């Protein structure tokens, strides 16, 4: 459960501050090890930035993994959790004997656990970064599936020049579709409907200069 990141900066102080920002925690929650003092060099030749390793102290009772563990044990589910920090957010990969149960329909259970986990963590305010969870690579697979669906739909809209309505999806999935089609100048997307029934509409977009040839599909 040791979580650490290594960070470089002009001074050790700067490297530490960057690391704390990245982890989203305060100074008193981490151990700091200076891996390299900055060296000046001559006229920037041979100059090396300071490097520190910042480790989250283990006695934090409300780490994302710990909270998730507590929830799973009370659900009667055995799971292994691996934590990774990507772009400053914490990603937890869950391996369990019941992946389908944890994922739920369209990832609903995964979303529910993720939401409650983030609420609990923001309350204890130790970890200020958003925590994402995934089980058996579901999110990644789902995202790829949605990106594929988006490009197929965009092609259909281009070919028929008529709008296409997609099935209702949760906000997170809609976001993936919107983002996937944003660079596509031939189509336009928006959402319609309320709550659980909210869905995406893909419509043809007027091309101002007629140079639509360069709109390679996403």
């Amino acid at each position, binding site marked *: 459960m040791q979580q650490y990141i290594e960070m470089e900066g002009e001074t050790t102080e700067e490297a530490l501050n960057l690391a704390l920002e990245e982890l989203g925690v305060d100074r008193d929650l981490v151990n700091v090890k200076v891996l390299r003092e900055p060296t000046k060099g001559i006229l920037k030749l041979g100059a090396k930035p300071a490097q520190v390793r910042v480790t989250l102290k283990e006695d934090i009772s409300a780490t994302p993994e710990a*909270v998730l563990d*507590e*929830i799973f044990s*009370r*659900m*009667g*589910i055995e799971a292994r959790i691996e934590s990774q920090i990507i772009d400053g957010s914490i990603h937890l990969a869950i391996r369990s004997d*019941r992946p389908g*149960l*944890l994922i*739920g329909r369209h990832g*609903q*259970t995964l*979303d*529910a*656990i993720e*939401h*409650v986990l983030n*609420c*609990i963590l923001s*309350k*204890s305010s130790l970890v200020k970064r958003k925590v994402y969870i995934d089980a058996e690579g579901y999110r990644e697979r789902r995202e790829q599936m949605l990106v594929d669906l988006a490009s197929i739909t965009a092609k259909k809209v281009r070919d028929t020049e008529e709008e296409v309505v997609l099935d209702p999806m949760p906000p997170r999935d809609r976001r993936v579709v919107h983002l996937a089609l944003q660079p596509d100048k031939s189509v336009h997307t928006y959402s319609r409907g309320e709550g659980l029934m909210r869905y995406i509409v893909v419509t043809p977009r007027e091309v101002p200069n007629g140079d639509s040839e360069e709109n390679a599909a996403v």
Partner: protein
Amino acid sequence: MFKDLIEYIATSLVDQPDQVKVHEVAGEKATILELSVAEEDLGKIIGKHGRTLKSIRNILYAAGIQANKRAVLELIESGKD
């Protein structure tokens, strides 16, 4: 088990964990869990647009499948009984 799950989540979410009470009522088909919290903490349990309460129910539902039992969560608004 269900009671423990709801108790853990509720106490972790609220400002006044000592006010969290979960009453378990065993029914024929399902267990009913009556949750009450301090009035000021109701919003923490319900969440924006009821999202948190919905998420807790979803987690409870999954726990129910795992245990092969059904459980239903009712949020009791204290001071109204």
